[in-house]
């Protein structure tokens, strides 16, 4: 039916989201840096000064390795969930391939992610952790996290059309995940029986892998095969999200 140019459309939708988000901010991309920097400062203060209970060296970059993937995850998931309902005008009036709307929403957040990754790498180098060969894993791992978020967003944005409470469920899930993902603690203090659950959570696997590469200077895989687990869960999530979306998209017109 719609036989246009997918890449051109995707590019335009991403640029649109990005321009709208930043054109109305006087400080522009500075806001992308502010949130992780403030949280890094606060968490460092709490866990180094107020309750110095574990001996994690380089706590600021340790916690930043957790905050950057989490921040992207939560912004992309929340905005993505709203994307279909917010673009009702477009979905009800122009016969575009409907999958492209939530995917463009996630991809437009990657511009914000790129700025935060640059900040993270800058801090890592400033803390005296040099560049190593394992950095070559980084692009693949980020792509896998983006694929994972796309899968989640496809599912929740479609469900949000039928059930407008979905957005609040996603918001709450993000708050819960902040504690259940090792952002400010290490995997060592997690009880053994839960470790596998952590490793199969793409967000946790991402954070653990980042720390291995950037702080420990070793391969992200280790004994646990973190990247393989990340790839597995992300792909499965994406396929499930996409099939749910294509099942639900036909009736968007009636429910929007």
């Amino acid at each position, binding site marked *: *039916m*719609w*036989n*246009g*140019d997918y890449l*051109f*459309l995707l*590019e*335009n*939708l991403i*640029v*649109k989201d990005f*321009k*709208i988000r930043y*054109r*109305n901010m006087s400080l522009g991309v500075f806001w992308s840096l502010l949130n992780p920097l403030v949280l890094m400062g606060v968490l460092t203060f709490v866990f180094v000064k107020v309750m110095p209970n574990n001996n994690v060296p380089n706590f600021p970059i340790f916690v930043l390795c957790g905050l950057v993937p989490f921040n992207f995850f939560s912004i992309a998931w929340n905005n993505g969930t709203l994307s279909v309902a917010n673009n009702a*005008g*477009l*979905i*009800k*009036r*122009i*016969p*575009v391939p409907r999958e492209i709307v939530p995917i463009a929403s996630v991809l437009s957040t990657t511009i914000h992610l790129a700025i935060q990754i640059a900040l993270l790498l800058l801090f890592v180098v400033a803390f005296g952790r040099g560049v190593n060969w394992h950095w070559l894993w980084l692009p693949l791992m980020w792509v896998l996290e983006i694929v994972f978020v796309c899968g989640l967003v496809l599912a929740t944005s479609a469900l949000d059309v*039928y*059930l*407008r*409470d979905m957005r609040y469920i996603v918001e709450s899930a993000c708050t819960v995940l902040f504690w259940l993902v090792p952002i400010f603690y290490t995997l060592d203090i997690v009880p053994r029986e839960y470790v596998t659950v952590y490793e199969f959570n793409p967000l946790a696997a991402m954070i653990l892998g980042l720390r291995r590469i950037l702080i420990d200077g070793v391969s992200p895989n280790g004994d646990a095969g973190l990247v393989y687990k990340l790839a597995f869960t992300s792909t499965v999530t994406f396929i499930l999200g996409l099939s749910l979306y294509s099942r639900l998209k*036909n*009736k968007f*017109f*009636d*429910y*929007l």
Partner: protein
Amino acid sequence: MTVIEFKNVSKGFHRAVGQRLLRHYLEDLLGKSDPDSFHALRNVNFAINDGESVAIIGANGAGKSTLLSLVTRLAPPSSGEVIINGRVAALLELGAGFHPDLTGRENIRLNASLLGFSRKQAGDLYESIVDFSELHDFIDEPLRTYSNGMMLRLAFAVAVNLDPQILIIDEVLAVGDQQFQAKCMDKIYEIRNQGRTILCVSHALGILQTLCTRALWLDHGQLIMDGPVAEVLHAYEGRALHAPSE
């Protein structure tokens, strides 16, 4: 060649459909809300051939817009079959993909990609779109600074330059001032004379009479008359006179 075919098509909507919260689903489970549905279209059958220009008439709420949303495949039929061959350019609502914070230039690019232009086509057609809209001086201003008429000019310019096989016009013939309206009509006639299929919804019966050769008359979701435009319009006007409340 048949480009649009409706076989026994019905389209129903639940009255309660629209924004739904968890509460509504719980009420459904408890049997509180009534699943009362109404039919926007009932057992509609017709076929349109390549190159025909067809008017769709009927009172408000007769199902005209629903019919167009089925032709563009934005909505699936509840029962029956809709067969479409060819690329549809809908002027269902002009400027549907426009964003007020983007400039005219950015909106042209965005809208072009939404309507299915490739990067190259969009680039090639950019000048002719701006020329047609006559908005050269404002093209780098954000759309929110445009007047309503200026925005419609831009949207119309994008849509008619797509070179569609099936052009759908839904009550958008009144674009801009008289001079621009005349220009839009010329463009629509040009598209028609190239042998394109046109579907036109309007209450401006005079325009329909000259633009179209055939008319479909919808009443409460049913196709009650299908024939040469003069006959159908005559019957429609006669009925409108006898039943002024409708």
